[in-house]
């Protein structure tokens, strides 16, 4: 675990050294603190909107939590807070899109994707509206807030919707790349974010093509296909495995739908085994999507690693990632066990 991650873990555990914390927005607007890559969502959209009059941003009473207030500060005439009414927000975004706008609407993933699933399908995807629904605080990153505030089913629910692009942002710089690529992307999108404290994978804004995975590390014994918050853990696990002689490829499969089938097929051809890693229910998400590709290919050892098909325990996020083996040591241990079983 890096020092950065240890710092993060301390905050997750609530041991902020006795300091009173009265608002859950610990970043400074526009300048994410080192080691704490805060949301750049509002800042990046505000910058894009300076040259793109189509961009409009909305949230549902979470402007500070998801940093869309950074957009509001620059473009108040193109920002709408819909209050606690997510269905209305998503559908109204579709109405705006039908009149020439490109709306980005953000709220917790549990409400954006799970509460708003029908609005995403019927009002955004089906009529091919360029609405970008942004689910923040996805997975179990809300920790002890409990399962009502977790989104461990969103990828499975949304990736089976036609004409909906589903993307997981990996970290702050990756999110910037996703947002920039999204402006002119046809049709509706769901963009899944972590809690804004995601460990750094990309030191600079990466070149990103929607639907094209990013191979972060070469290897031959095992391919870890990870998405979103698990990419850093996969990279660190790969580094640890390498030290004991296991060569591990790591793929950032940021686009869940449409999936980069060729990158999966390449891993199947060129490495001995594949393991998917995701902060999502083991059913329906990245692992299932990859399995759908592998079933048509010559067989190779394959393991889906994610959250088991049950509602997770309450706990600080770091403790949950540890308990469900989704931090780097956990991913490493699952991979070692997998490799030992396949010989």
């Amino acid at each position: 675990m890096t020092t950065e991650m240890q710092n993060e873990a301390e905050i997750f555990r609530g041991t902020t050294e006795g300091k009173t914390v009265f608002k859950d927005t610990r970043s400074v607007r526009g300048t994410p603190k080192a080691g704490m890559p805060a949301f750049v969502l509002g800042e990046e959209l505000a910058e894009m909107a300076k040259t793109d009059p189509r961009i409009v941003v909305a949230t549902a009473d979470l402007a500070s939590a998801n940093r869309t207030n950074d957009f509001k500060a620059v473009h108040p005439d193109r920002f709408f807070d819909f209050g606690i009414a997510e269905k209305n927000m998503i559908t109204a975004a579709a109405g705006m899109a039908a009149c020439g706008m490109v709306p980005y609407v953000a709220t917790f993933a549990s409400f954006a994707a799970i509460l708003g699933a029908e609005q995403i399908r019927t009002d955004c995807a089906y009529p091919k509206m360029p609405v970008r629904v942004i689910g923040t605080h996805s997975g179990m990153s809300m920790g002890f807030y409990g399962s009502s505030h977790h989104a461990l089913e969103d990828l499975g629910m949304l990736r089976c919707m036609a004409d909906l692009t589903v993307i997981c942002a990996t970290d702050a710089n990756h999110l910037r790349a996703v947002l920039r690529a999204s402006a002119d992307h046809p049709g509706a999108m769901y963009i899944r974010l972590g809690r804004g404290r995601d460990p750094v994978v990309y030191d600079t804004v990466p070149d990103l093509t929607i639907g094209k995975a990013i191979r972060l590390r070469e290897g031959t014994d095992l391919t870890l296909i990870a998405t979103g918050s698990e990419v850093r853990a996969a990279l660190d696990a790969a580094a640890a495995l390498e030290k004991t002689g296991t060569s591990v490829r790591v793929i950032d499969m940021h686009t869940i739908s449409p999936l980069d089938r060729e990158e999966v097929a390449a891993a199947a051809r060129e490495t001995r085994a594949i393991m998917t890693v995701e902060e999502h229910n083991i059913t329906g998400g990245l692992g299932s999507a990859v399995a759908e590709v592998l079933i048509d290919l010559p067989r190779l050892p394959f393991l889906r690693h994610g959250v088991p098909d049950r509602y997770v325990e309450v706990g600080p996020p770091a403790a949950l990632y540890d308990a469900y083996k989704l931090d780097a040591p956990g991913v490493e241990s699952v991979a070692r066990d997998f490799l030992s079983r396949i010989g």
Partner: protein
Amino acid sequence: MPNRSNVNIAVLEDRAKFIRTETVRLTRIAGAGHYSSTFSCAEILSALYYAQMRIEPANPDWDNRDRFVMSKGHAAIGLYPVLADLGYFPPAELDTYTRLGSKYGDHPDMKKVRGLDFSSGSLGHGLSVGLGMALAGRIRGHDYRTYVMLGDGEISEGQIWEAVNAANHFQLGHLVILLDRNGLCIDGHTEEIMSIEPVHDRFASFGWDVQRVDGHDLPSILTAFDNLPQGTTGKPQAIVFDTVKGRGVKRMEMSLDWHVGNLVGEDYDDVMAELEAGLKPYVPEPAQ
């Protein structure tokens, strides 16, 4: 305010009749259709499209056109003939109604139907769509109005009230609810299944300007339209149209049996003849 000097009530009556007869004709192609929900809003649709909305059928993508969202999408069967009649697409295309590969299904698809401003079918969404359209108009400096037709059963959906609330908050004076208050949902009278009265007071209590008129009386409908304020701010506007579900066909009026149906043979001919003869005064069945 639109120029009413060219409006001929007899023409609007004829177009309402056309909406009804086309609904009967198209339903026979499909083998099932929503007669009575369409009949209740025939005069409203006629007045809206032939006398009220600022549209250019030759230019369906005109940015500053008025918008219409048929939130009660199951009445699209009455809207398609209007769009064809106005020139958005050849009327002959309607002969494919609901057949494999047709552009025209029971619930309308904006990606296939020229002149349709938004898709619909899942009740409770349309007012939010209209809300977004009105907000977009404001951002872009346009002064178009957005009309949203709601069913009375539909407004039991919670999302409607999210949008009612938000339209007042954003002061969207150019957003107009057209409520087809035909009295019935599928399972029975709305007041028995899930009551909505006093519906005008409910809208008013959310900050809307509300009018309530006879939705089959064309002069009253036009007057209500004339009363809508100009501009794109101020109180959002609701018009509650008291209507009769199934209006125009005696056997269907306020009947729970005709939400979806199919007329064949002599029944088809009888109903067409009844419609061609024009609306008779509505006489409610005596209370049991």
